[in-house]
């Protein structure tokens, strides 16, 4: 097939050679076009409507069925499908046609696209790019203005009722939606237009799902998410899946796409339209520090002894117990870690209104934040503290030279700060400082 047999749908800028490879079999054709025009063009080849068997297509490009099986195993693992589903996935994906996708970006920061294009499991994502045709995407497309909009309209017309609509960013409703427009049209108008002919919609990121940061109080633009618009009847109701997160896990986007392409429907969702395979558990339930929560071993401040030992960050405001997401399972940055594992509390970015829930470092349950200690353990601590007090001649040090009498509760803090004057350096562990505090309190 030559270049003339291919119909240009939407020129797409290629982000690195990896993207070029992902785009698929027509790469050679538009490389030829690039050499002539210096514009990389994404060509939508004419074989697409003929629904080719993708396994045959992959085989032609040197990808074995064993490799395809590996890809399906990884995809099934991500989707939390039972092992028996791998066979179905192989069968379904092997006979799928390329799915046209229109990706709309509204009030957003492009973080969701950044997340998606930095997927760390190319065994899944690379192949997925062979399964869909990204016909419109602000960040990745080369053209702008009327050409870009024309390509979108052309794709919508040719694949009426069959294309998948992906939305990231919130939609402003205040003052007629003038806070965000594309080509002179409001986001709402564009979403309404694209939603009419869409087979299904994926809302990517907390902004598209819940309104996100643009909806933070006082929400000056009247930002809302896609589901709210469907519920209000402002756009057509279509099958919808929500992938919240700021941004969502790369694997969340790609695995839901894999499921849709393979089975023609979305995976099972909860009452917020979130896939149960990814959002069915809280971060807390799968957290690598969960055992320390059960053992009531908490970090009390950053870089204390508990922090160095990897204890639970609950007292530092961790939202893991309230946040439904799979960060603890799939992790970030090539599977290296996730915020809690790296020593920072979960901010709860996948939950509605996470930005308006008070300070990020305030414990989510103030009553729980007082670590329950028995009378006996306090007595033991005070006894240990007395030994420390006497053995280290704390009594002859001026804990706070600026005050006649220091509040005993403040002494461990002052000692931790390292700002006190002392003729002898006192080096206590955090646990010892707590014991010292208990002893000083008991002397009141």
């Amino acid at each position: 097939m030559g270049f003339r047999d291919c119909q240009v749908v939407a020129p797409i800028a290629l982000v690195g050679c990896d993207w070029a490879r992902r785009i698929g079999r027509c790469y050679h054709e538009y490389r030829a076009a690039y050499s002539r025009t210096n514009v990389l063009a994404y060509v939508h080849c004419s074989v697409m409507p003929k629904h080719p068997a993708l396994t045959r297509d992959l085989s032609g490009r040197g990808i074995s069925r064993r490799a395809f099986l590996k890809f399906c195993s990884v995809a099934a693992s991500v989707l939390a499908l039972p092992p028996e589903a791998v066979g179905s996935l192989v069968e379904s994906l092997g006979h799928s046609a390329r799915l046209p996708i229109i990706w709309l970006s509204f009030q957003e920061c492009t973080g969701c696209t950044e997340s998606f294009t930095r997927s760390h499991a190319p065994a899944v994502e690379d192949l997925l790019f062979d399964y869909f045709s990204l016909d419109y995407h602000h960040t990745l497309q080369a053209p702008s203005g009327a050409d870009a909009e024309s390509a979108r309209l052309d794709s919508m017309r040719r694949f009426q009722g069959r294309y998948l609509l992906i939305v990231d960013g919130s939609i402003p409703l205040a003052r007629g939606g003038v806070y965000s427009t594309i080509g002179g049209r409001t986001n709402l108008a564009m979403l309404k237009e694209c939603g009419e002919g869409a087979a299904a919609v994926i809302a990517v990121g907390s902004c598209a799902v819940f309104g996100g940061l643009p909806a933070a109080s006082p929400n000056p633009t009247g930002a809302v998410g896609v589901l709210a618009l469907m519920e209000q009847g402002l756009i057509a109701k279509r099958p919808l899946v929500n992938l919240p997160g700021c941004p969502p896990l790369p694997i969340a986007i790609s695995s839901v796409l894999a499921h849709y392409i393979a089975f023609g429907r979305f995976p099972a969702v909860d009452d917020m339209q979130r896939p149960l395979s990814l959002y069915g558990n809280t971060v807390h339930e799968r957290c690598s520090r969960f055992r320390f929560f059960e053992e009531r071993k908490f970090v009390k401040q950053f870089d204390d002894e508990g922090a160095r030992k990897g204890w639970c960050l609950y007292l530092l405001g961790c939202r893991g117990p309230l946040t439904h997401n799979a960060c603890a399972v799939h992790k970030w940055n090539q599977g290296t870690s996730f915020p809690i594992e790296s020593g920072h509390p979960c901010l709860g970015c996948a939950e509605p209104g996470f930005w308006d829930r008070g300070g990020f470092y305030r414990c989510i349950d103030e009553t729980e934040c007082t670590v329950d200690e028995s009378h006996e353990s306090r007595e033991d601590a005070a006894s240990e503290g007395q030994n420390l007090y006497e053995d280290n001649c704390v009594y002859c040090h001026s804990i706070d030279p600026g005050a006649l009498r220091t509040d005993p509760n403040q002494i461990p803090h002052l000692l931790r700060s390292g700002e006190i004057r002392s003729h002898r350096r006192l080096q206590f562990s955090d646990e010892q400082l707590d014991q010292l505090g208990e002893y000083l309190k008991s002397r009141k």
Partner: protein
Amino acid sequence: MSILDNIPVHIPSSVSTADRAYNTLPLLHEIRHALERLSREGESTILDLRAIPFPPGDEQRLLDYLGTGEVEAQLHALGNSLIRETRYSGVWVVEHKNGDDERVALQIEITSVPAILRAQPEDIEEGLNRLTASLSADVKEDLV
């Protein structure tokens, strides 16, 4: 190897060996039940270790416990994959890596032979066709 691995950071584990066995023991019991099902009913099981939270050291402890058996195979497709039988026959560790040698899946398969090791019927058919085509008269002459 990831560049991150080159950063000389070591997080010492301050917990005792007994404390580290957080998920190892329940998983070993699950593997035992699966092996029993395989033995009596021929039913295979796959356990996805990525979906299980492991405190530092717990995953290695599990793999160490399972040990290494007689079979080890490497698959070179979309990155490397290592498939090895553990010291318990029928219990396999399957580790899939991508092209950048980053792990994308870690599974325990309780089965006679992991499916990914078997030659696929379509590949066998293709292999037959290619071999038939290559055994042309010219090639035969070369061999003779």
